């Protein structure tokens, strides 16, 4: 029989301290306060003093609260029956369904042995040209969406979740607005994807500390699905809230903050979660797509900054579009050589021309005279923005590449694009585009297009 303690020495923030014996680090305890029982976890041992992080928050915990240690660490249950279910941040059902108690799986399991990983090799098709064509998502990739409050990042996540060819979708919400939670639920249900999804949603109204559990629960469950050979897509929104919850605890524990109040181990903590993305040698895979909102649109803020060093690229979502500059999929080279022979060329050419378009826009804004080449770029840029970048565009990769050629052919003469002759012959649609006056870009390498444009102007 386990001892019950009922004398709490210290309550600060969401951490309580009491005297207890035979307690192990990371062990769970049930704390019964005036507002019901909450789980708590041991986060520090100091002689007989035990520090407990209370998941439901310390509000309403009396100094004589009953504390019972459970003799086990944090676990979550795993079974096929999870599919189609919705839970809260601590793993309790949110959908009035029965509790699931099978196969308790410890959270934050050991790291994967690097020699048992394989080089990522499968593309994840999303139907979004800005991803499929320009920054291909790859199975087992970990990729954050860098965005600011107000951008449709959750809509984007939901769309990718619906269209990606994966076996299981696991959604983890941290500090999610209740409306957004309902949006995800309804959206997945309407499109019939709820049956292959598991949702762990911590809303902004729930106790902050519970947000800390969400990524661990999601990824522990994802790992079990992956080990059974499933291809899993884990969506985490929003990791900045997770980091903020960590900051809160660190400050309560009087840890020395490193930058803007975040604990010194922010990088390791984030990495421990993101590194769960994996393609197992001989089993399934986990792909992680996360949202990181950047306070003040500042990418040097500790959360996006540390994230950028950990993840394999990032998508910038700005003005309702995935920004082509800055967005990067570090793994795209692993797959985009195998899709279609023109994929890489279209990817590079269109972006370089779009860069030239942006420069022309600046020139236009400053009141410089527009040359014929500038006008072509303006036409191109507008078509690119409305037909490729717009998030409502939904095209399979091949169609998107064809559309790319069509836009190029509509705006430019073949030699103005700097595309190598062999590909022009193979893919350039029908008749040549409108005449190519004033171009100096005869066969020059694509990098010089911007210069060529200026030369044409001179």
């Amino acid at each position, binding site marked *: 029989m386990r001892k019950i303690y009922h004398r709490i020495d210290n309550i600060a923030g969401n951490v309580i301290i009491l005297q207890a014996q*035979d307690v192990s*680090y990371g062990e769970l305890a049930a704390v019964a306060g005036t507002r019901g029982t909450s789980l708590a976890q041991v986060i520090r*041992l100091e*002689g007989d003093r035990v520090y407990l992080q209370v998941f439901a928050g310390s509000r309403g915990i009396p100094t004589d609260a009953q504390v019972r240690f459970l003799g086990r660490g944090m676990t979550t249950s795993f079974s096929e029956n999870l599919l189609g279910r919705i839970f809260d941040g601590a793993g309790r059902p949110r959908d009035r369904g029965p509790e699931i108690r099978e196969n308790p799986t410890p959270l934050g399991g050991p*790291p994967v*042995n*690097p020699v048992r990983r394989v080089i990522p090799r499968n593309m994840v098709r999303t139907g979004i040209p800005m991803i499929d064509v320009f920054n291909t998502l790859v199975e087992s990739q970990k990729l954050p969406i860098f965005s600011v409050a107000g951008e449709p990042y959750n809509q984007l996540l939901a769309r990718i979740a619906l269209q990606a060819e994966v076996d299981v979708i696991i959604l983890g919400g941290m500090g999610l607005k209740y409306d957004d939670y309902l949006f995800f639920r309804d959206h997945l249900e309407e499109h019939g994807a709820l049956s292959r999804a598991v949702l762990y949603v911590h809303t902004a109204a729930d106790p902050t500390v519970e947000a800390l559990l969400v990524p661990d629960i999601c990824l522990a469950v994802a790992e079990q699905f992956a080990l059974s050979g499933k291809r899993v897509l884990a969506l985490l929104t929003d990791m900045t809230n997770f980091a903020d919850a960590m900051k809160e605890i660190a400050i309560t524990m009087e840890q*020395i903050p490193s930058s803007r109040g975040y604990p010194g181990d922010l990088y390791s903590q984030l990495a421990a979660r993101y590194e*769960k993305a994996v393609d197992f040698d001989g089993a399934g895979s986990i792909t992680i797509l996360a949202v990181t909102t950047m306070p003040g649109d500042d990418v040097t803020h500790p959360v996006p*900054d540390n994230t950028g060093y950990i993840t394999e690229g990032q998508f910038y979502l700005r003005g309702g579009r995935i920004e082509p500059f800055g967005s990067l999929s570090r793994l795209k080279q692993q797959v985009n050589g195998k899709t279609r022979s023109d994929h890489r060329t279209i990817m590079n050419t269109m972006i370089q021309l779009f860069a030239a378009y942006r420069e022309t826009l600046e020139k236009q804004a400053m009141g410089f005279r527009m040359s014929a080449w500038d006008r072509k770029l303006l036409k191109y840029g507008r078509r690119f923005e409305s037909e490729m970048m717009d998030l409502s565009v939904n095209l399979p990769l091949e169609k998107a590449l064809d559309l790319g050629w069509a836009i190029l052919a509509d705006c430019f003469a073949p030699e103005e694009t700097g595309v190598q002759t062999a590909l022009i012959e193979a893919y350039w649609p029908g008749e040549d585009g409108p005449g190519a006056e004033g171009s100096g870009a005869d066969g020059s390498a694509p990098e010089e297009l911007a210069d060529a444009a200026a030369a044409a102007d001179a």
Partner: protein
Amino acid sequence: MSENVGRVIGVNGNMLTVEFFRPVFQNEMAFAAVGEERLKAEVIRVRGRYADLQVFEDTRGLSVGDKVDFSGELLSVQLGPGLLTQVFDGLQNPLPALAERTGFFLQRGLYLDALDMNRRWAFTPEARPGDTLLAGQPLGSVPEGIFRHRIMVPFGLTGRLTLTEILPEGEYTVRERVALLTDEAGREHEALMMQTWPVKIPIRAYAERLRPQKPLSTKIRIIDTFCPVAVGGVYCTPGPFGAGKTVLQQITSRHADVDVVIICACGERAGEVVETIREFPKLSDPRTGKSLMERTCIVCNTSSMPVAAREASVYTAVTMAEYYRQMGLHVLLLADSTSRWAQALREMSGRLEEIPGEEAFPAYLESVIAAFYERGGLVRLHGGGVGSVTIGGTVSPAGGNFEEPVTQATLKVVGAFHGLSRARSDARRYPAIDPLESWSKYDPVAPREQVALGDGFLRRSAEIGQMMKVVGEEGTSMEDFVVHLKGEYLDAVYLQQDAYDPVDGATSEERQRHVFDRLQRILLTEMDFPDKGEARAFFQRLTQATRDWNRAAMDNPQFAALEERIMQMAAQVTRYA
């Protein structure tokens, strides 16, 4: 060592506070028992009867009162034949062997020997009984892949030693006693085929340190010509995320003109290591024709592995580098990224509640970084021959800002600085080393005055480019405009390099000298153009031709033909006053 057992009295993250009853020493290894598992830990502070230990594993499940065994040893690595081609974690556990034991995941508390204890190596004695030897001098050798791996007098012995016994030629395991030595006081010492050495102590069994002078050819033009690295030198590569630090290191690890490469992936993505692990065995080393893996050893403590082991991993790697240096080999150690290592120090310092320095890094950060880079160097060995350890560390500054403590502490102690810039990587100008910000104290492969000239053009060109943004092309003089174009040309055809092209990807020293000499002539040519459009068009054609030249192998007749054409193009626009 007799049993020295302590008792856990506190757990805070990966830090244990342990009460001890018999003497312990700083940095002593200890094992904390949790159930059946024994977790490796290291003493990092002693206060009264209490020692603070950093644990190299997850500490979940430890309780107050658990037993801690002090081992009486420092954190050490095994040194002997069989290290090359291996993949180790930060504590020198062989990862492939761990995978065989535990499958997909790394289980805590499982430690394996770094060396294969059963494998037999063909030993050939080189010293004879009666010889007088110093620590680090060869006793014999065994073949290890492409090398003759020397078996040496243990590094820890001091004074002159007389060899009394040595094994005859034959096949032995690494645990075999190959020799017996007598020191000046008449004490006997054993020499095994393998040695163990504490990672935090540099191996000093050499005659003297020499000044690094010879350039180390990395085959990357912007490095070798503009910010060179010397054999036995140390350099750092800071850069914001996505600027190509890791790619640059991967290219260096393939092409660098050294005998052994030790890659230390310290707190970075596992994916990057996987690429090296899977690709290297398939790539062939141009120097030997054998697989690149035969000269490579990987130490990999990725970001999700325990933090304390991350701190140890760079020391594990540098100790193995020093070991191969002792055999008269030139070793390149690439550490990616030293910022993660510094962060590991910061995490521990925070747990110890030390008074923080800048950005919460500990006050001793600078001296720790300096001590690490000082382990690089060129040395003359006892009994002739030289060996070297060249260290290249990447730095991942927060927010890409080079003013942060780790970058600044590193800059003080390195001989070359390759600063990567976001602007260059966004413009797809790879490798994204900023030629204006980077510097080197070592000698370049090309003559210094030529390099200074090229550098001058780059600087002028950048200034003019800035000016042109304000006054427009119309407001720029023709003379300035041409200087700008020349600078851009040098950038496009020399600084930028296509890593994926088989010829352009690796430019030999000889070729760099040759090409740079020709480019220098073009830069010095006074040119005349009717207008700016014409000038720009000329340089576009010249760039195109020179890039083709870059892609032609030097022994290919095309190489000479293209060179001829380029020089002719330059001659056509020359101003004849």
